[in-house]
C-alpha cells in the first residue's frame, strides 16, 4: 500500500539549532530525513511509522569535509558523491571511497549521506565496515552540547545504537595514521551496482619485522583490523581473528586457522539475498584473501 502524503508532516527549519531544539522539546516525535534514500523507500512501501519528519538535508553545519594534519572530519550530511570525489578520502581512506562508489547508482550517491547510512543501521550498510576498519569516531550533537564517541560499539544490536532521541550525528572523524597500511575491501553481491551486499569486508593491516620460532626475523602481521558486514545484526570487527594473526608469519596453517576463526565469530542468517552457509564460507574465504594479499603487499615493499 502506498503512503498518502496528506497524512504526513515534513518541515524544514533550515538551521541546526532550531532542529535540535525541536528534537529536545518533542523527543521521538520528529524523524530526521536527510537525502531520503532509505526513508522514502519505507514511505513508498507504506512502512514508514513516523508521521512527522524534519528535513536535515543540506544543512551547512552537517556538510563539508575538514582536513587537519592528524585527522579528517566529515560532515554527517556529506553524500556518497562527496566522499568518492574527495581527493584525500580517495587517497588515504580508499575503503570509504570504494564503499561510496559501490552504493546504489549515481543518482542514489548524489542524495544518500554518510550520517544516514549510520543511523539507518542496516547490517549490510556499505560504509560501516570501512568506519570500523578505520576506527572512526562520531561527534553527536544535541541542545546539551557535543559528545565524541568511538564508532565501534555505537551500534549495539539490530538497528539499535547509542544515540539519544534528541541527538544527531554531526561529524565522522577519521585519524590519518594509516601510513604504510594495506587496504582491502570486497562487496559480494548480485551485481556491480544497485545491490545490497550478501557479504562485505573492509580491512587494513601492516606487515612488520618480527621474531619467529628459532629466533629468526621474518615478516609478521602487525596492526590489523578486519570488519565484516551482513554477517551479524550489526557490522562486526573480527577481534578474535585479529588477535590470532597479530605477530604471526602468514603461513597456509595460519590462513586456515584464521578462516575457521572468522566463521566462528559471525552469526549469518538465511534471508532473501543469501544463506548462512554461503555467507559463512565466503567470510572465511575473504579473510584468507585479505591476509594473503597483505602478505604479498609486505613482500613487495622489501
Amino acid at each position, binding site marked *: 500500500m*502506498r*503512503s498518502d*502524503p*496528506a*497524512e*504526513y*508532516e*515534513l*518541515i*524544514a*527549519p*533550515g*538551521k541546526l539549532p532550531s532542529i535540535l531544539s525541536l528534537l529536545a522539546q518533542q523527543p521521538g516525535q520528529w524523524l530526521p*530525513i536527510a*537525502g*531520503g*534514500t532509505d526513508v*522514502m*523507500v519505507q*514511505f*513508498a*512501501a507504506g512502512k514508514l511509522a513516523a508521521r512527522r*519528519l524534519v*528535513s536535515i*538535508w*543540506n*544543512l*551547512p553545519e552537517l*556538510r563539508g569535509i575538514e582536513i587537519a594534519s592528524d585527522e579528517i572530519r566529515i560532515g554527517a550530511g556529506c553524500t556518497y*558523491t562527496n566522499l568518492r570525489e574527495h581527493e584525500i578520502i580517495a587517497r588515504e581512506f580508499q575503503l570509504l571511497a570504494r564503499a561510496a*562508489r559501490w552504493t*546504489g*547508482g*549515481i*543518482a*542514489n550517491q*548524489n*542524495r544518500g549521506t554518510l550520517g544516514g547510512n549510520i543511523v539507518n543501521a542496516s547490517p549490510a550498510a556499505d560504509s560501516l565496515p570501512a568506519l570500523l576498519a578505520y576506527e572512526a569516531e562520531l561527534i553527536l550533537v544535541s541542545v546539551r552540547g557535543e559528545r565524541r564517541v568511538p564508532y565501534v560499539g555505537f551500534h549495539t544490536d539490530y538497528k539499535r545504537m547509542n544515540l539519544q532521541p534528541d541527538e544527531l550525528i554531526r561529524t565522522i572523524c577519521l585519524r590519518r595514521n594509516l601510513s604504510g597500511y594495506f587496504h582491502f575491501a570486497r562487496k559480494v553481491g548480485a551485481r*556491480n*551496482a*544497485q545491490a545490497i551486499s550478501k557479504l562485505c569486508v573492509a580491512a587494513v593491516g601492516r606487515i612488520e619485522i618480527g621474531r619467529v620460532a628459532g629466533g629468526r626475523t621474518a615478516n609478521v602481521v602487525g596492526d590489523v583490523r578486519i570488519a565484516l558486514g551482513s554477517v551479524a545484526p550489526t557490522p562486526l570487527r573480527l577481534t578474535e581473528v585479529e588477535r590470532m594473526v597479530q605477530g604471526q608469519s602468514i603461513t597456509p596453517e595460519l590462513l586456515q586457522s584464521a578462516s575457521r576463526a572468522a566463521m566462528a565469530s559471525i552469526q549469518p542468517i538465511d534471508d532473501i539475498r543469501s544463506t548462512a552457509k554461503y555467507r559463512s564460507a565466503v567470510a572465511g574465504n575473504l579473510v584468507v584473501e585479505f591476509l594473503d594479499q597483505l602478505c604479498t603487499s609486505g613482500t613487495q615493499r622489501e
Partner: protein
Amino acid sequence: MRDTFENGPKIDRSLGELSLCDLSLTVNGTARTVRVYPMQRLLDVLRNELGLTGTKEGCGEGECGSCAVLMNGELVNSCLIPALQAANSDLVTIEGFAGNPQFTALQSAFLECGGAQCGICTPGMILASQHLLTKNPEPTLDDIREALSGNLCRCTGYMQIFEAVARAAQLRSIV
C-alpha cells in the same frame, strides 16, 4: 550550495488539512509555484501538478532510474525526493533537456545505435548520459556502464545504449 529553507514555503493550516504548502522552484528554466503536500514525491509533482510526464515511474524505490531528473545539475531519482526538499531548486526534466543543443548528439546516437525500444527507460538514460558527459566528455565503456548502472532497461540488453553514449561522446567532440 542552495539556500536552506529560512524563507521556505509557508505551511498553510487554514484549510484544516495537514500542511499543504506553496512550493517555488525552477523547472526547465521557468519559475513555477505549485500547491502540494510537503511529502508528495517530486516525481508526482512533476507528472501531476506540472504535467511533465516524460519522467516515468518504474519501481518507486530508487532502483530503476526511470524517474531520474537533474536537480541543481545532479542526477537524482525523483521518486525518492519529498517535494519540500525540492524548494528553490533548479530542475531539468527530459522535456527541458530536449531543448538543449547537447541533446542533439544523444538523440542522433540513440537513433543510430538502436538505444531505445519501448522508451520507458529512455528519459532516465538520456539524463544519466548527459550527467556523465558533462563530467567526463571521453568516457570509457566502463565509465559508461558505471554512470548508467542506476538505470534499468528491460528491452535492449544495454549494449546498444552504451554504444549510443559512446557515439554521442564522439559526435560532441567533433563539433
